[in-house]
């Protein structure tokens, strides 16, 4: 469909740029692991004993830093942040740009309903997200293997990448919803990323204080936390359901609001 193809074309260089960034980040992270192989068994024992709060401060919560996969798990948070920033900006941008650049008088005077245009845009966004995810997955496999010491890691990475995908879709949907529902599309990107930033901070807060654990439902970074995923070996169904609900509500809201509101000219 024409809107889909056009958006894909318009975003191609951005996608390349982000993909490169992702690859570089994973490489440099794992390279650091390679340079500092803390290979001692005793180290693992001690690391285990460090109190939760301390672990939280250093982002080490629940990882076996001596294995390549364990170290990668710690890196995962930053992968997630990158994915989240990309997704939130993408979602907001795709919807808001017509109004921001004043091309809405061209596009929406065409014989296509707003929903049809929205579908094309959202699909293009989804494809971009999937591509970035694939790039992250491929680089993760490649670079973890490069520094690995004969330990299995395949299933861990697959699980983490699925978690990453969920996170991306959540923030993409939020970005789209913020742009679609608001009457000030120009500031949509800022608002969507503020939300993302808030949940990012909340992630640390929740890890710092056990009493605040109930807040974990408010930050998607907790739904797909690397340490939990790697320990359980599976996704938590509650979080998966919660994610799906958020996404469905956000997207449905976007369709409804975007068709019903006036376009800011």
């Amino acid at each position, binding site marked *: 469909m024409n809107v889909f193809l056009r958006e894909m074309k318009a975003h191609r260089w951005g996608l390349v740029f*982000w993909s490169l*960034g992702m690859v570089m*980040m994973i490489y*440099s*992270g794992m390279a*650091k692991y390679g*340079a*500092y192989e*803390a290979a*001692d068994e*005793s*180290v693992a024992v*001690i*690391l285990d*004993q*460090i*109190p*939760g*709060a*301390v672990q939280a*401060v*250093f*982002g*080490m919560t629940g990882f076996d830093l001596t294995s390549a996969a364990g170290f990668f798990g*710690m*890196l995962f948070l*930053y992968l997630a*942040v*990158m994915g989240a*920033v*990309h997704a939130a*900006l993408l979602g907001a*941008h795709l919807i808001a*740009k017509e109004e*921001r*650049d004043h091309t809405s008088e061209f596009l929406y005077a065409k014989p296509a309903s707003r929903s049809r245009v929205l579908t094309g845009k959202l699909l293009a966004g989804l494809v971009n997200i999937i591509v970035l995810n694939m790039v992250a997955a491929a680089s993760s496999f490649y670079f973890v293997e490069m520094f690995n010491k004969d330990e299995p890691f395949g299933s861990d990475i697959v699980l983490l990448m699925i978690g990453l995908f969920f996170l991306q879709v959540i923030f993409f949907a939020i970005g789209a919803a913020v742009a679609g529902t608001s009457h000030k599309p120009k500031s949509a*990107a*800022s608002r969507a*990323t503020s939300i993302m*930033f808030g949940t990012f*901070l909340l992630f*640390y*807060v929740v890890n*710092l*204080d*056990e*009493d*605040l654990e109930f807040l974990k439902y408010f930050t998607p970074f907790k739904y797909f936390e690397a340490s939990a995923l790697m320990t359980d070996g599976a996704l938590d169904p509650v979080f998966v359901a919660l994610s799906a609900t958020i996404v469905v509500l956000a997207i449905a809201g976007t369709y409804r609001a975007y068709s019903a509101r006036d376009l800011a000219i």
Partner: protein
Amino acid sequence: MNVFLREFRAYRKSLITWAVSLAGIVGLFMALYPAFASDIEGLNEMLANFPEAIKALVNITPETFMSVLGFYGYLLSFAWLAASIQAMNLGVVIISKEVSGKTADFLMTKPVRRSEVVTGKLAAALAVVLIMNVVFMAVSYLAVAATGAEFDSSTLLLMSSTLLLLQLVFLALGALFSVTIPKIKSVVAVSLPTVFAFYIIGAIGDVLDNVELRWVSPFRYFDPAYMITERGMEPEYLLVVAVFVAAAIVATYVIFAKRDIHTAV
């Protein structure tokens, strides 16, 4: 003077939002200190048993980690992150606003030198930054004092002043971007990935205390532990900040004086 006033006034609402948010971050994290403090009692003995490698790895000493200032040092990285995003937004907006908002035709044809325009806008940005820092220092002091723990005020002042330095760096960087990148349609799409990239680079390097990479990310120029023990900042990084900010600002003036102003139409 008129440029300064207009820019400053336009930023009022945003300044309040950011100041409140930053104060919120400080307040929120410091409120968690009591829980943190009780959590890590008994860490002292454990620390004695840590092998050197691990101590070097995570850089924990009683003074730098378990004191209230140590905890404050931890929250600094989040404050830096938020403040840097704000500062970079400010810098990027300086010129790009006129172009993307199509007011370049208005402002740039007034009887005013280009350097005067830049000065007025930079001055307004600087005023915002200064106000933010006054708020930040005040809230930091109050929040830390409220925990009831003992601390050295001058060290706290020193630590909170790092926010100013980081904001200056990103303000300068943003301004440089705004005069070199031809068409910035979305300020957030430029500043967010940039700041987060530096943050992630800093975070990855931080865990492993990687010396070479310290120069790359401003987030690693100021080490809370160092500031607590040495009551000063490492001079070489202060120098880097000074040199970079000066160079970037000068470059901004020079480039802007020479370049063509393309309006949107």
